[in-house]
Structure formats: structure tokens, C-alpha cells
């Protein structure tokens, strides 16, 4: 309507009166500014209803939200923005939630289960899991080592060769070290090989074949 009114009625193709603008009236001009962010209120809001019911429901609401904030369902984001680090921060994390939530995993899809490690963590028996396989492995390997060592000792005792025994023991005690060293050597060799065949070298043009190329190009070039 504002756009049409711009012509003040003269240039408009239709009868302005049809829009409800009578002859004497000046049509409203175009709006050039956005409406104010906080327009003045013509009608004041009605006062809120007051009753005991509402007060009670309000109290219930507050209590409910208060519970939710403290419940284990309220998920704290890990990186809390803080103004400063406080000494008391250390002791506050434990007080945030009321009790623990142990979900019944029958009601949830399997993929939502936290990874095993996490479950152990919640249970408080954190150090057990990583220790079990490691200790078992070491035990078995130790046993094997001692067995082999004993065998070797017997053999060597039979042979009664003292120097050989010492060497054998060293080898048996640190087989890892040796392999590591071997690996290191291998890697070094690889690196050397790579340096030899570095691709930059092959693409380096020292300009010796410059003229030859030109000659060839002339031969291949178009004949006029």
C-alpha cells in the first residue's frame, strides 16, 4: 500500500478510493526506516493472576528444575568457562550430582553403551583392567625366559664354559633391545636409500642439453 501511495494518486492506474482513501485524505507516505526496536506500548500487559494454586505450581516448577540441575541427567560440558582457577574447584565436581545413574542397558540400544574403559572408570576399579593382561603376559614370558635360561644353564654347566654363559644370559635378558637396534639400523638404511633416489635430483636440469633440445624442436616444428 505504501508503495502504491507514492504517486499521490495522480500516477496510479486505478481509483484510489477503492482502497478506502477518500478524496480529502493524504495517503500515507513510504516508510523509510525500520520500526523501532522497542515500540511504545499502547496497551499495558494485564497483571498476572494470583492464587494459591499458582504459587504452589510455581514452587513445584522451581523444585523440579532445581532437581534436574543437580541430577545425573544434567550433562556438564567438559570445558567449563571459568574466570579464574580456584583451589576449591578441585572439590566441587563431586558435589554437583545427586547420586549415580546406572542405566538399565536392556532399555537402550547397544551402540549407546559407553566403551568398556569408561564403564570401569565409573565403577572406580580403574587400575584393574589395564593391569591384568600386562601382568599375565609378563608372567608367561618370564616363565619362558627362566625355563629357557635354566635349560641353557644346564647345557652350559655340562659344557662348563663360563664366557659362553655370560653372553647367552645377556642375549636372553634383553632381546627387545637388540631388535630395536636392528630396526633403527634398518630405518637408517632406508633413509640413505631414499636420499640417493631423491626425486629433486632427477628433475634438476643443469642446462647442458639446452641446445640439443632446441635442435630437436626445430626438426619437429611445423614447416611453412
Amino acid at each position, binding site marked *: 500500500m505504501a508503495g502504491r501511495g507514492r504517486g499521490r494518486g495522480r500516477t496510479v492506474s*486505478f*481509483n484510489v*478510493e*477503492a*482502497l*478506502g482513501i477518500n478524496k480529502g485524505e493524504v495517503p500515507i507516505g513510504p516508510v523509510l526506516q525500520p520500526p523501532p526496536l522497542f515500540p511504545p506500548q*499502547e*496497551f499495558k*500487559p*494485564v497483571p*498476572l*493472576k494470583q492464587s494459591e*494454586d*499458582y*504459587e*504452589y*505450581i*510455581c514452587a*513445584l*516448577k*522451581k523444585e*523440579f*528444575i532445581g*532437581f*534436574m540441575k543437580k*541430577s545425573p*541427567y*544434567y*550433562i*556438564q*560440558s*567438559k570445558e567449563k568457562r571459568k574466570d579464574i582457577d580456584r583451589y576449591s574447584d578441585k572439590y566441587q565436581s563431586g558435589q554437583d550430582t545427586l547420586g549415580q*545413574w*546406572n*542405566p*538399565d*542397558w*536392556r*532399555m*537402550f*540400544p547397544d*551402540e*549407546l*553403551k*559407553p*566403551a568398556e574403559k*569408561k564403564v570401569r572408570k565409573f*565403577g572406580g576399579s580403574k587400575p584393574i583392567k589395564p593391569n591384568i593382561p600386562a601382568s599375565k603376559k609378563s608372567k608367561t614370558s618370564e616363565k619362558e625366559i627362566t625355563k629357557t635360561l635354566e635349560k641353557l644353564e644346564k647345557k652350559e654347566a655340562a659344557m662348563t664354559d663360563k664366557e659362553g654363559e655370560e653372553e647367552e644370559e645377556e642375549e636372553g635378558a634383553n632381546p627387545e633391545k637388540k631388535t630395536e637396534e636392528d630396526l633403527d639400523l634398518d630405518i637408517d638404511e632406508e633413509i640413505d636409500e631414499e636420499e640417493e633416489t631423491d626425486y629433486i635430483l632427477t628433475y634438476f636440469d643443469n642446462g647442458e642439453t639446452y641446445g640439443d633440445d632446441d635442435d630437436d624442436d626445430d626438426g619437429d616444428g611445423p614447416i611453412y
Partner: protein
Amino acid sequence: MSHNKSNLCKSILKDNFGEVAEAVGCHLLKDNICALRYLALKSKFSLEQTKKVLCVLLQHNICDYITDSKGTLEYLIDSEIILRRIRFPNYIYCAKTLYGDAAELVAEEILQNGQMLMTQVVKNVTNKLNEALTNAGHPEIASSFVQEKFNCLVNTHFLQRCKNRTNTSNSEDVTDDLYKIPVTGSRKRKHSTDNNPVSLKKRRILDSPEKEEPDDAGIYWKANFDRFHQYMRDQLMITAIASKVDKKAGEVLRTLLRVCELKSDPYSTVTNAVTLTEIFNALPKDFGLTRKLLQIYLSMISEDSTCFISKVDESGGGMYVVNIYKALTQIATSHLESVVLERFGSKCLRIFRVLLLKKHVEQKQIEDFAMISAKEAKELLYNMFSQKFITTSEIAKTPDHAPSRTFYLFKVDIHKLAQHVLERSYKAMYNATLRKDNELTEHSWRLLDKQERVDAIIASIDQAGGDDTQKDEIEQTITPTERDQIDTVKRTVQMLETCEIQIDDTMFVLEMYLFYANQDRLLKCTQKKKK
């Protein structure tokens, strides 16, 4: 879903479950359906955090999941159930008014936890009640009392079982057992329920850390929001009639609704017919209403312009039905009228009522009917038109639709207006929560924190049996100006919260009306197809 609604959903999620849940929920709301990994990727939280959020949302029945054709799980979110969290205090209050304090605590416990085992609920509520009772110096109560209340709530369908995820194979007991209470305390029963060897094995593995398997393991309960809504809807109609006619008429309607409740589908627009005798027999004995008077009341309500009930037959002393859709339309219309009155003034309300009465009216006629001068009427109409409270329909005399040869008829579309006002309510609610957050965090969280700490110290002194001078000293750490500030913040927050509750009342009326309007439309469609 509209912008306002999703904003409101987000703020509710944030209030209830924290910022991580808000972000994840926001992406779910946007995409409607989402797989876990994709969701974690989009929301930029770690997989573990996303899993945790989904678990919490599933626990609170906000999310659901389905398996797609490839076998991957996809998660859905229900915005309606998020919005219902605003109404939780109302539900709790409902349970209180119907069945007393114990039921209130039962409802609260279940709403707080989303889904829960019956034994757990009964145990927790009994503990809480006993704590409160011993503090007040009353004797303790037994858990059977709480159990009875729980049974009451289940039998009246306010609580229902959650969908059983564990044994989906036997689908026969999915529908009929929604409200069946498991028998507890007998070992025999437990064995008979666990006839599924796979689940038994699973259970043993899963529940090994727990001390003991409760008798009703695997049967979780949740609140049935629809039933609560039905009760609140009835309450709305009763208060409307009570204020229009008198309190006794309200009681008559309450009885009528209670009788109908057992007989008819809760979602039908009109209830099944009930005879006068049935209503009379169902009236409370101490009410003191004779049969004659009851008949007068019923005819009075049915002849009223609001058409809450109507007489369908003369047999059996008169058969009556409750027109739920019509009643809700009336209530919604009167709500909308009061919105027009408060937004635009009484003159606009006059025009609005003319439009409601005469349906399609030209501007000239409006001026005449509403007795308002032409110039003023034009401005008022424009005001309402620009805010989408009224609409026009063009009827051209000639095919060229030239404005000079066209009738512009104004009209009010209650259905659309209800949607529009509902949108505005969402926005108002969102604004209120934003404002509340602002009040609580920006300016005064430090002060509130301080007060909380002082209160805690005073409480601890009380416990330790300290004297008053000590308490006074600590109380004086909050200066009078600080105290004033705290008081103003508290008052503002209180006001905003009351405001939220009252906006929700309006939202409830409009939602109910729109729901039944939809039901009505569906009914008409099926009727047309039959023809």
C-alpha cells in the same frame, strides 16, 4: 516446526539437561532423524558425550530410535514431549489434587526420572514421605500405602508401561498390558515371567554388579501425558460452566464427564450418549440434588449458547452427549477474544465479535454493526489485519480483479488465529525464559551464590546448636543493599515463572482446541470417503 517453537525446545533442553544436550537436541530437531555418528560429527561433541546425551533423552522418552533398512539405528526426537516439560508442575499438581501427597510424590519421582521401576518408585517415595513425616513428628507409613497410590494412578491410566524393548518377539502383550501391574514379592511369578532363556542369560550378565534383581525387573513406568491432558481438559470445561452457570452445574458436568470417560474414546469429538438415570446414580451422594433439579440443570446447560452438552434422545429420561470439540472451540474463542481485548482495546473486540457473528463482512457493514466511525474502523481493521488477527477474502465482480470492482470481505478464521496466537505464546515463553536466565546469570549470580553459602552456613550452625549471635554475625555479611538487590531479583524471577505457567495455560487451551479441530477434520474426511 517454526523458529519460535524450536527456540523454546532448545531452551527447555538447556534448562533440564544442560548445554551439551541442547546442542545435540538442536541438531536432532533440525534433521528430524539422525544416526549416532553423524550426530556426533555435526554437534562437534565427542562420541561419548553424544552417547550420554542420547541415553538421557531416551530415558526421558524424548528420543526414540528406529532401525533402518541397512540395520543402522537412527534417532528421532519429539518436540511435543519436550514442550510438555513446561507442564510437568501441572501434572504433579494434578496427581496431588486427585490422590493426595503420596501420589504427588509418585508422579514427581517418575517425571524426574523419565522411566522407573515400580519397586524403585515405591521405595524412594516411602523413604521421602517417612523422612518428612518424622520431621513433622507424625508416625511413619508403610510402603503398601504408597503402592496403593501407585496402583490408583495406573488403574486410572495416569501412568503406563514403557514400550518393552527386550522381548519384541512376543507382540501379543504389547497392547493389553500397558496398565497391568506386575505382582511383586513372590518368587514363583518371577520365574514364570522369565521364560525367555535368552533374556534371562542376558540379564544375569548385565546385572551382575547389582545386589539383587528386583521382582519387576524390565518393566518400566512412565507418565501418560494424554491422560493428564484429558483430566485438565475436563477441568477446563467444568470451570467454564461453573463460571457461566453456577458451581452445581459444574458438578453436574463433572459427573457427566466421569460417566462418559469409561464409555467413550478419549479422542472423539463427541462423547457417547449417557442417560439421565446413569448421571443421577453417579452423582455424589452428599450432593443433595434431586432428579428434577438435575434435569433442569442438564437442560439449562444444553440450551445454553455454548453447546457444551446436547440432548440426543428422549429415552431413558433423556440421553446426553458432551460436545468436546464445540466446548473447546468456545473456550478457545473466548481466550482469543480476551487477547484481542488486551492487545487492541475494546473497540477492536467489538469489531472482532461482529466478524465472529456475521462471518464475512464488508468494511461498510462493519462500521454500521459495530457503530464505529468510518475513519476509526479503517484504522482498527488495519491494525488487526497487519497483525494477522483478521483476514480478507477478495470477491471480484469482473475477471480482471480490478480493486474498484472487487468486494473485500473481512473474516476471522479461528483455527488459523489459534495457530498464530500459539506461535506468539511460544515466543512469549521463550522471551520469558531468556529474561529469567539473564536476570539470574548476568547481574546477580554472584550475590545469589553468596546468599546460598550464607544460608548453608547458618543451617550448619543450627545443626551444631550454635547461638544467635553467631548467626547474626554471618547474616550481616550480606549488606542491606545486597539484600534489596537479591529481593528484587527473586521477585522478578518469581513473576517470570508465574508468567510462564500462565502462558502455558493459554498454550494448553489452544493446543487442545487445535488437536480436536484436527480430530474433527479427520472424522469428516472418513465420513466423506464412506459416502
